[in-house]
């Protein structure tokens, strides 16, 4: 049974027969599982992660937008569709990042125990974490790319810098995914996730500048909005798509998002280890 055809380990002769002669990085092997699993769920995920934002775009941007434009003649100097489209890109990234870091992380720990299956193989805790976050990154890249293409077709894009809205959206998603994954790994039950939605994601979705400028908020509430990660994701995506980006504010937005994702990853390494290594 042992080494019947001599291709035992990860660097065994079996690996050398392939086009790609180097061993696959451990985290990428973990990511591979989620890609495999996606083969059976991609249909339903298209609805939530792609169709919904496009429907929002049509309803808010085109439907509501025509009304808004008629009365106020442009929001922040652009037609309402142009205003809301890049905001929805960031909001969608937030939703995907958060979604994928809640129930799927809990499932991989408690329900399907995927992480434990991985940890019996060469993968380490850190590879399991990177693989999962990497997969969330893949999801964010694909959804954001398609969404940006649709937005471009609506004629919203006003700057070549709009291509940078793709990494900006991915950073927005990961700024939510990493800290939420860190939190999910500490949970015994999924009840807290509902609270995150009710008290976190839905208020952010509505009041972080996606649908109207934050300046419309009462003065005392504005600092709260400025402090939220979605506000910075929305500003960054909007500035890049509409060509209103200026170096330092945009760098500030990006730095905020990257720092939050990085901090989340740092904490997740610890919570994952505490949960998975006994």
């Amino acid at each position, binding site marked *: *049974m*042992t*080494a*019947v*055809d001599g*291709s*035992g*380990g*990860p660097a065994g002769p*079996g*690996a050398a*027969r*392939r086009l790609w002669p180097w*061993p*696959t990085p*451990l985290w990428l*092997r*973990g990511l*591979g*599982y989620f890609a*495999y*699993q996606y083969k*059976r769920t991609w249909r339903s995920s298209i609805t939530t992660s792609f169709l919904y934002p496009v429907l929002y775009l049509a309803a808010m941007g085109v439907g509501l937008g025509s009304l808004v434009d008629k009365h106020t003649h442009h929001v922040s100097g652009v037609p309402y569709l142009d205003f809301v489209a890049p905001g929805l890109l960031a909001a969608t990234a937030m939703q995907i990042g958060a979604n994928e870091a809640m129930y799927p992380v809990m499932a991989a720990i408690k329900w*399907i*125990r*995927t992480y*434990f*299956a*991985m*940890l*019996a*193989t*060469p*993968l*380490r805790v850190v590879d399991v974490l990177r693989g999962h976050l990497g997969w969330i990154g893949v999801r964010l890249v694909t959804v954001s790319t398609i969404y940006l293409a649709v937005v471009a077709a609506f004629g919203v894009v006003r700057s070549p810098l709009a291509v940078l809205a793709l990494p900006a959206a991915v950073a927005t998603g990961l700024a939510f995914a990493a800290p939420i994954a860190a939190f999910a790994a500490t949970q015994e039950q999924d009840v807290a996730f509902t609270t995150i939605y009710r008290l976190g994601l839905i208020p952010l979705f509505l009041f972080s500048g996606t649908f109207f400028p934050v300046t419309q908020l009462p003065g005392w509430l504005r600092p709260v909005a400025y402090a939220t990660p979605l506000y910075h994701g929305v500003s960054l995506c909007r500035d890049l798509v509409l060509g209103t980006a200026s170096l330092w504010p945009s760098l500030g937005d990006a730095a905020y998002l990257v720092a939050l994702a990085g901090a989340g990853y740092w904490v997740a390494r610890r919570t994952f280890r505490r949960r998975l*290594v*006994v």
Partner: protein
Amino acid sequence: MTAHLDPSTAEPRPNGGPGTLVYAKGLVKRFGEFVAVDSIDFEIGRGESFGFLGPNGAGKTSTMRMISCMSPVSGGTLRVLGMDPATDGPVIRARIGLVPQEDSLDLELTVLDNLMVYGRYFDLPRKVIRERAMRLLDFAQLTERAHDKVEPLSGGMKRRLTIARSLVSEPDLLILDEPTTGLDPQARHLLWDRLYRLKQEGVTLVITTHYMDEAEQLCDRLAVMDRGRFAAEGTPRQLIERYSTKEVVELRFRSGEHDAVAARVSGLADRAEVLPDRLLLYTADGDGTLARVHAMGLTPESALVRRSTLEDVFLRLTGRTLVD
């Protein structure tokens, strides 16, 4: 292959001999204040089938998790395949197969996809995994279910799939943590047959169990574990010879009478043991002892003469039965 661990010879070679796959010296696992594994020594050689026998909570699973490099060692020395799990975990795990106590199959994926996904963790090319998967599904008698989801499979089928999955990487060492717990007798026998075949093919097996029949069937050598320590170690035959008699007479009287009867008949046997529901007499000649019991005018409600088993060894060593 070391049949017995002799500390004097084990000391100078901290990685064990060339044929040693697992070497442990003073191995400890602590969870806070609780000591789950309390300084155990053992060596497992290539091609051997080594069992950890003990009741729940004896420290078997903790030991398995340390050997499979999933749980850090709290103290002592552990070498697996000559390497240190603390520093070479990924390299070691690439060469061992683990059948955990709790299944970690993906119920929504098909039987075949579970093997494909798992093989990818070892970076095996898809073509290689597919070839092996077909062979392994045949071995696990799951070929017909290859394209079915795992969810509706029976407990025995899931266990066989988990074993097939652990073999995808063609490991040097296969670790099975209570492989048949919770299965019905038929499923257990089928599983034993498959594991026995692996043993015949020379796969090194490390098994934990609290079933003595499983240990007797599958293990060349056994460590009897109790409260984190080894109570005894040896081949099943050696253990029985060392710690029990050739035969056992089991007598059942009306409840409450066992202690009184034991006092009267204990002289007839090497040793008498009173259990809640029966009285055990350990003796070289079961029929002779039983005849003498009858000659004393005692009339047990039932009487049975049988050979000694590992259960008796365990009872002798710990004063408790294996499965409550």
